[in-house]
């Protein structure tokens, strides 16, 4: 199944903030206020990374990185392992200090402030529940360190137990509860001190797929209820797309793109991002302007294809057209479309609700086309080796220069 389906479902279910891309809201007047402080020049960010570099010996983990994260955001750091996302999180928690540059929380530089003196809490990937303490004692641990009075402490722990639906398990030890319950204990423990910022390190990595999807919604609910700023680290793009208000795609210590999930998916700024998020077809050729924001791209063997782009290209410049499989249609007869190419079906990936057809074009290029299975399998139209046409509109893809 396409990884991004879940992401869209969550948007449609009406949870969370209005996350419609701002470019749309600029075009069409909206009645309700949109949660998009990153577009508001007057908004002060909660967290600021200012030219932050972190080196471990010779290895550069974070490379001159600048980033703003706003209050009440659910911000995702997404990237392959070793991209520096965990280092960024550990710098926010106070376990690492930047080699150069400044990290500010609420306008104060927090470099050198030890973890136990930051209004930041972290939910660890391994959950790091204290095995010798009960669920109740685990949640109360941070509050006790603050010297909170008994009544207030009991009330706060009960509130956390209720929020994470753990009332029945308060007296159990961590090894006596399930993985999903442990995950909720870890969340409750890190939220108990009402931190300004909650860091989640691969929070759902240890859960199975079904439980992970349910928990994603739970996380969003809790984030909204508590109004806490969440920063989540994940290598799972589906997870990032589902929960986050903005996603930062990272690679080799640098942020490649920061945008809302929709923007990241529909308007990636580079081949790297387009390829990292979801499934994508890439066609490389030479651009030639044909009008206002429209280009003809000369692809070797395949011939001319047409695409529109707000990003300007000079004539003869190499460009990459990135099109998502669900935006490529598949036909038996030549359709009337901006772009139509003939090929033959090489493979069919049947995913239940969808099928992805791998269509081989002349020249050996393979295009993935996705279509919804609205008919029963016995009445499916195409099979292996069938000659077919694939088509897409000029606005279906995004033209990238790198």
């Amino acid at each position, binding site marked *: 199944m396409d990884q991004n389906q879940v992401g869209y479902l969550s948007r449609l279910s009406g949870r969370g903030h209005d996350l419609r891309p701002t470019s749309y809201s600029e075009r069409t007047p909206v009645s309700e206020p949109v949660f998009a402080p990153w577009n508001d020049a007057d908004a002060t960010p909660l967290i600021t990374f200012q030219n932050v570099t972190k080196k471990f010996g010779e290895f550069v983990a974070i490379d001159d990185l600048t980033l703003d994260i706003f209050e009440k955001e659910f911000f995702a750091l997404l990237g392959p392992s070793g991209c520096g996302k965990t280092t960024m999180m550990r710098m926010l928690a106070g376990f690492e200090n930047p080699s150069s540059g400044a990290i500010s929380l609420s306008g104060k530089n927090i470099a050198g402030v030890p*973890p136990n003196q930051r209004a930041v809490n972290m939910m660890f990937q391994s959950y790091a529940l*204290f095995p010798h303490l009960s669920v109740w004692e685990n949640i109360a641990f941070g509050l006790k360190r603050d010297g909170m009075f008994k009544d207030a402490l009991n009330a706060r722990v009960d509130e956390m137990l209720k929020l994470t639906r753990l009332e029945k398990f308060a007296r159990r030890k961590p090894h006596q509860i399930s993985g999903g319950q442990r995950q909720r204990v870890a969340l409750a423990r*890190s939220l108990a001190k009402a931190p300004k910022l909650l860091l989640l390190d691969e929070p759902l990595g240890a859960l199975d797929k079904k439980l992970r999807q349910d928990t994603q919604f739970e996380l969003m609910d809790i984030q909204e209820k508590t109004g806490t700023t969440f920063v989540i680290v994940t290598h799972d793009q589906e997870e990032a797309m589902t929960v986050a208000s903005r996603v930062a795609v990272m690679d080799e210590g640098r942020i490649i793109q920061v945008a809302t999930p929709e923007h990241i998916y529909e308007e990636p700024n580079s081949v790297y991002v387009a390829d990292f998020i979801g499934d994508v077809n890439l066609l490389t050729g030479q651009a030639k302007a044909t009008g206002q924001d429209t280009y003809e791209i000369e692809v070797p063997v395949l011939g001319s294809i047409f695409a529109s782009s707000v990003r300007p290209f000079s004539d003869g410049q190499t460009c990459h057209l990135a099109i998502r499989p669900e935006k490529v249609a598949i036909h038996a007869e030549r359709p009337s479309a901006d772009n139509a190419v003939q090929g033959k079906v090489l493979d069919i990936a049947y995913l239940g609700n969808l099928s992805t057809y791998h269509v081989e074009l002349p020249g050996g290029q393979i295009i993935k086309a996705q279509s919804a299975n609205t008919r029963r399998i016995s009445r499916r139209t195409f099979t292996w080796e069938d000659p077919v046409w694939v088509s897409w509109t000029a606005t279906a893809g995004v033209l990238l220069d790198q």
Partner: protein
Amino acid sequence: MRRAVLIAVPYLWLLALFLIPFFMVFKISMSDAILAIPPYGPTMKDGFRELISQLDFENFVFLTTDDLYWKAYLSSLKIAFIATVLTLMVGYPVAYAMARAPEEWRPTLMMLVILPFWTSFLIRVYAWIGILSTNGFLNQFLMGIGVISEPLTILNTNTAVYIGIIYTYVPFMILPIYAALDRLDASLIEAAEDLGCSRFKAFWLITFPLSKNGVFAGCFLVFIPALGEFVIPSLLGGSSTLMIGKVLFEEFSFNRDWPVASAVAVVLLLILIVPIVLFQMNQQRAQEAEQ
């Protein structure tokens, strides 16, 4: 059938090498000392019926009448207890440092802890005589650097016994604690710091409680042999060092009173059953917690 054989082998081993010798010692403890070879009677040569009828608890009663014995037991318990606490204080930091050392260093550090076992125990204890004696290395060194002007009397005191016990048994303390600390997830400490603990507090609230089983195991592994220790107090201790192992040895070899020596041994074993049972319970609990 095969399972029965497999189970039988270690039990037969224990029967032959522990239970039967114990009953022999127990029998001697109920005999009387005589001038003969062997120096006690009656024996099987007198006939079984005669043997049984002459056995009594006279020697155990004797142990209660002479205050040397219960003083020696108490003194042994005290020395073993203090030595165990001191060994823990030396061993825990070493185990902690080993568990925190870089991964590639750990096998080497482990090796260094085990290395002394490759030399005879007796030779190592004798080496301490050379170090601790009035003209020994330690005194010469301390006087050489000007810390003291008169040599310290360490050898033939209880201090030397403590040093000997700590030196000999510290690996038994280090290894179980290291094993417990090595398993500890480093993110637990980070979580504790994240939730507001200082380094020290995180150690006290998380690391130490989670290494408790290792600490218990180490303490019992030191306390149990230290209680009956005889070589260290005889070689390093003085005439005032009273330990039951030494009393037992003197009773057996100098007094040639095998029955009383056997009675001392039987009582020592009874005393040791308490910490041994506690140790076994701790091991079992640790194993259950792991599952």
